[in-house]
């Protein structure tokens, strides 16, 4: 059991406070900008995905995924 690695999102000095909402949003936004710019298989994008998956409330991720499909995402993730 000791060889299972358990970790969470590392400290990001841009978001030093307890409220990590902005950190969640930034990671989600950065992940999709990353794969839009570099392709889905670009490995370094994975870190952003892991970050938003652990930081963000499931509701938020679900809502943004839906908005992405409808094309109504209120922020840009292209280019």
């Amino acid at each position, binding site marked *: 059991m000791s060889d299972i690695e358990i970790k969470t999102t590392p400290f990001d000095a841009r978001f030093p406070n307890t409220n990590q*909402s*902005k950190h*969640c*949003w930034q990671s989600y*936004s950065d992940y999709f900008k990353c794969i839009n710019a570099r392709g889905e298989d670009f490995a370094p994008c994975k870190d952003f995905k892991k970050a938003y998956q652990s930081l963000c409330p499931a509701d*938020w991720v679900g809502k943004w995924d839906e908005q992405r499909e409808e094309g109504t*995402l*209120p*922020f840009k993730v292209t280019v």
Partner: protein
Amino acid sequence: MQKTIQSHPFHLVEPSPWPLAASLALLTTTLSGVMYFNNYANGGLLLTLGLISTVLSMSLWFRDIIIEGTFQGSHTSKVQQGLTLGFILFVISEVFFFISLFWAFFHSALSPTVELGCMWPPAGIQVMNPWEVPLLNTVLLLSSGATVTLAHHGLIQGNRKFTIYGLIATIILAILFTGFQGFEYINAPFTIADSVYGSTFYFTTGFHGFHVLIGTIFIAVGLYRVINYHFTDFHHVGLEAAIIYWHFVDIVWLLVFIFFYYWGS
């Protein structure tokens, strides 16, 4: 009227109904405003009555002050200084009111929330081009600041025609500004209900416009009094107050233009 000599330069006013009338009118206005917003019966009617009685009380009170100062000679230099200081303090309180509106704007605009998509302006808001009508309005107000200063200097130099023309020009520029703002409001691509962007925009520009209307009336009263020989070259506190108020309105507009129209787009 004065029947005794006083050994001090101050004006101890005679009993007047206007302070009480004004406060009752304001009480009616505020309470009925709440009634109106909450759909209580007769809210709208009482609100109208409240607003009318507020305007009436103020007009009759100011009329009495003009009578005391211009026709009864109660406004010595000391009294004039007191009135000017009091008016400046009032303008400072208005400045704080606008500070609250700007605070609300910066609170929302400097760190846009996740719900807005961390963007300002929020996605979907079609901002107004600052270099079209807003720039014209800026030029109109700056020019009106110049014309009102010219009129003031005309009064001090005893040039009656120049003073009157300057004040008329100021009022025309003010009316043009108000007209263009009205046009912008009618043709705007977003409303007050369009997210916090619309709220902060219309609250601030709306209250600014209301102050422009008040300032315009204030200057118009000054014009009326110049025409009717109320003022002398060095005793015209009413006009000086109007001019101070007008410059305040102008400066607030400059800040609105820079932060809401230019920076906020």
